[in-house]
């Protein structure tokens, strides 16, 4: 019995080791940082980069979607899960010599669990200058309420 667990331990350790090695290899494939003066970093995270905020009355999502039209983006709320889906197509011109290509075509899907009920009728989504702003208005019962403090 004891040796059985030891074997399992060893197998798991070997798997862990392999995973670390694969991770390191994948790190090597990351694009090299740019050397332009003053530039701190290159965006190498997930696409699209986005932020979400709770403003009290609503949840605001802002996603960077450069090069996408409104028809390239799908937003869906199913139960309490918001899914942002889309595709950025290749926009390279034909017949040109390619020197550099960092803006890869991409298909993406990101899902978020919403922390409260939202009113979809009042919610809005706007795509402007390559930035999608989604405002999900909270259901009335989910909004914060002030409780008056009375002196007696």
């Amino acid at each position, binding site marked *: 019995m004891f040796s059985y667990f030891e074997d399992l331990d060893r197998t798991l350790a070997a798997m862990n080791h392999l995973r670390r090695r694969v991770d390191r290899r994948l790190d090597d494939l990351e694009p090299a940082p740019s050397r332009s003066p*003053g530039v701190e970093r290159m965006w190498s995270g997930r696409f699209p980069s986005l932020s979400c905020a709770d403003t009290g009355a609503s949840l*605001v999502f802002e996603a960077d979607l450069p090069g996408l039209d409104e028809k390239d983006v799908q937003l869906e709320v199913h139960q309490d899960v918001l899914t942002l889906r889309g595709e950025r197509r290749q926009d390279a011109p034909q017949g040109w010599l390619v020197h550099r290509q960092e803006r890869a075509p991409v298909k993406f899907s990101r899902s978020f669990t919403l922390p409260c009920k939202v009113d979809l009728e009042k919610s809005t989504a706007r795509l402007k*200058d390559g930035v999608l702003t989604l405002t999900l208005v909270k259901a009335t019962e989910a909004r914060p309420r002030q409780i008056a403090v009375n002196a007696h």
Partner: protein
Amino acid sequence: MNEASMNKREPERMAERATYAPPVDIFENKEEILILADVPGVVLEGLTVNLDGDHLTLEGHRRSRASGGDEAVDYRRTFVVPRGIDSDKIAATIHNGVLRLVLPKPVALKPRQIEVKAG
């Protein structure tokens, strides 16, 4: 900024804002060089393109997000381009957060046909 950049003696920015290198595509044909850059949230008014000798710098300033989740950021990148490009002829447009820069090549760089005559 950090120690590493001090050591490299790079010029420092006045404002302490995050600066990102936007991903770019660069193409060339006989007449022009075309640069496409992802600069979401930047409008033409917030964009500067500067050609200094053979250094082309594109800089875009982006307002902070409405949700206040992020501070304002800058996009900035510098490329070495062929000498002799006329800065007045550089055309810049932004559509859906993608910057499109067209640089007409100087005459000296355009391919020329040399006629071959039979002797």
